């Protein structure tokens, strides 16, 4: 069971993408690879939901896309965090930490 990729907690995908891009701007595939690597294979993104989220974040002005050549001479859209996106990431990270701590406390209580 634990080997299979698991579903993301609702609403966390945006935060993960923002976090990924906070380290370094990259393209869609790069995001999905990095999330998979960092989560040690627990989260594996579907292209549909990934690009849907990217489109949403871009429209909200949290990330910005720019067409650039890739290593193997194709064109890809590289996304970078905007100032607003960085603020949102900070907020969400803090909020997430609070919630996780709270949930942990509840679960440990029994």
């Amino acid at each position, binding site marked *: 069971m634990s080997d299979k990729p698991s579903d993301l907690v609702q609403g966390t995908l945006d935060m993960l993408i923002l976090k990924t891009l906070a380290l370094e701007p990259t*393209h*869609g*595939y*790069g995001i999905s*690879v990095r999330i998979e690597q960092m989560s040690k294979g627990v989260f594996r993104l*579907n*292209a*549909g*939901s990934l*690009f*849907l989220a990217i*489109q*949403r974040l*871009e*429209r*909200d*002005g949290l990330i910005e896309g720019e067409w650039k050549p*890739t290593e*193997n001479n*194709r*064109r*890809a*859209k590289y996304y970078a965090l905007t100032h607003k996106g960085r603020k949102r990431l900070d907020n969400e990270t803090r909020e997430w930490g609070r919630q996780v701590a709270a949930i942990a406390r509840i679960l440990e209580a029994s």
Partner: protein
Amino acid sequence: MSLLRNVARGLRSLFRKERVDRELDEEMGAYLEMAAAEKMKDGLSHKEALRAVRLEQGTLEVTKEIVRSGGWEFVVDTLWRDLLFAFRLLRKNPGSTAAVVVALALGMGLNTTVFSFVNALLLRPPRGVKAPEQLREVWIHNPRSSGAEAYLPMTYPDYFYYRDHNQSFEGMLAYDFDPHLVIWNKSDEGQTVLGQLVSGNFFSLLGVNAVLGRTISAEDDQTANPQPVVVLGYAFWRRYFGSDSTIVGKTLTLNGANYGVIGVAPAGFTGLLVGFEPDFWAPTAMVEQITRDKGRLSNWRVHWLIAIGRLKTEASTSGARAEASVLEHQIDMDHPDLKRNLDATVFPATLIPAPLRVYVSAFTALLMAAFGFVLLIACANVASFLLARSTRRTREMAVRAALGAGRGRVIQQMLVESTLLSSLAGLLGLILAYWTAPLLLALKPASLPITLRLPIDWRVLVFTVIVSLICGVVFGLTPALRSASVSVVANLKDETQPAGFRQSRLRSLLMTGEIATCTVLLICGTLCVRSLRNASSINPGFNTQHVIAATLDPGSLGYSDTQVRTFYEQLSEHVRTLPGVTATSFTDHLPLGPAREHTILDPMQPKSNKNDAIPIDILRVAPDYFQTMGISLLRGRDFISSEGAEGSAVTIINEALAKRLWKNQDPVGQRMTFWAGPGKKSSTEVIGVVPTGKYRTLGEAPVPVVYLPQLRARRTLVVRTSGDPTTLLDSIRREIHSVDPNIAPTDLETMQQYMSLPLFPARTTGLLLGVSGFLALALTTIGLFGVISYIVSQRTHEIGVRVALGAQRTDVLNLIIRHGLLLTVIGLVIGLGIAFGAGHLLSSLLYGIAPTDPATFIAVAIVLCAVVFLACYIPARRAISVDPLVALRYE
């Protein structure tokens, strides 16, 4: 910011779709390549790697579709595509589309027409007035009475008391409830014009400024020293003064007195009463001069002013209401001699005075209900049309579902189609309303000094849009839900699907409802039309064919009694010599009009009878009145001219009164006493008896009436003609002018024209409900025909089998007709039941016919059955004339 960006991005995707698509393609392509390159590191070939990625991620197209559907523009885009598709579909069947749209448009158009009526009467605020929503009407209320008669306008002293003692209003204005028909004495002729008396703050409180000169001010309207000034209505100024810009300062002679023109009201401002466009406004304090009614300004008993306050921003209507009640109580305390014991209340101000709104609302509600039902029938038709079509389209829906269209998308598609239909119908309905609304106004009697406009304004537009959308969703939802729940596999496997049991049951339900509604409307319509025929043939008790009436009031010019008498004597002589005139006379007022004079008989006289006080109507007439009006004298004699003098104690009574007072005796020569005023009794001798006529309304029970020979200055000239009376109207007007150029008749019309007033309610309901009944029948027939035709076409195969197996043609015919008739009978029974129960709502509008008239019920049932039979028979004939071989091969 981000919303703006979102919108901008969405618009970019919508209008630069190819470019955005290409970018998405490229981005996804890059993703795919990179993922494949990763796989190739594991030693797969390029092709194998791509395949592996696709297996993992699904096809690129689906992914792209998912990404695309994320933005709001996706919804717009699909709606647009659905709309285009719906257009194509409707264009493919122009015949049935047109039929559906026209049927719906008829229903919607009539509803829009009625609504434009409601809008003009009840919803539109007065034009040209600042912040009309703050205006409130204050009415004195008699808690012991009910209906409109429980509400009284204010007396002049009342108005002053309320105006000066209230805390809720920024200011309080007043205007005359009754329009004043005033004679405008031009150099050589008199013309009647409409005037309204208004308080000095009327214009300033309404925020209305003169386009020329100034408006009436508080200084003009001082009780002690009123100024004879007028403000002209814009339309009047344009029409009769050619927009003369030097009009201010000139003088108008009105009812024989001079008034200075101080200004002209702005275009579009016509005061606060619906249908009433004053030619001029004058100060209320001038009332005694204009009406020649001395003492009106100090009179606590004559209620004649509508008071309107502008609510302070911090005040509430309920607060103002409570305050008005307290103020009224204080008046009662301060003036115990009045014995008023009244209350007061406050309403929002609209163009119809609050106490009358109930009647207007009730009338328009009846029309709305009738035409609402017509619309419902039209909707049921469209719903069954769409249901039939959705059956034909099950395969299309199955294909859509198989290709990944979700339930929501299919429902959206179907609803777009139905709302497109209803919107087209709404548009057509608006055009229809534009043409039919003036027809509704044409029903109004010409003699009413009312000018009503039924504009198609934004409220009417909003109404039509809402009705269109509701109709679209209501009749589209069932077929849409049906389409969305199509079973994919069964429909793709099978070529044809027999019409499901559930579906035909739904259609049958619709048809039954339609027939029931149609029955109700048809019965109401027939009742009203028959009632109109009854009303037109009711004998009002006088000749309506060869009589002309003209109302005159030399008293308003300030003439003395002698001058008045001389005028009428001369006029009578002049008119009598006109060729074609056989008799002339005068009356105080005509029966069946708005004017009434009534009193009660003194119960002690005559002694011979019961002690109850009999209420009686009084009509004052000159000699020859009965002859002129074609009323025969049953007993006794007519008045003679010397009896017209004050103090002569003779009377002619009608049969109704004669029978109540002296059942078996000759009334002629008997004496009776009635109250002639507060504390004043009048004892008279009966000299004649005439037949009972109609005096107040056409439908009334016999009313006891006494005729008195004493007339006042205001009289109605009645003229009997031997031929067509219309040819004499002009010569009578000329004679009046030649006798006294200053006098103009306020009403000059034939009796036939006059009768349009008492017949107005019967005519309106008769025409409108008749039309709605006829439309209901037509729509139901079309709908039934369509559904039966469709069922027959669906069963062609089955019929072919039956005939091939040896079924007789009559058997097949029976089979189909039985289905239609069964629906009809059920619908009919329900409809008759409702009509029977709801009939009493109409009873006040019906003349000489019971709301449960059996003949009407039976006739409607027979007509409906016959029509349904035809609607079933024609398609059934077609079905059995099909060659069984063709039918069996048909697929």
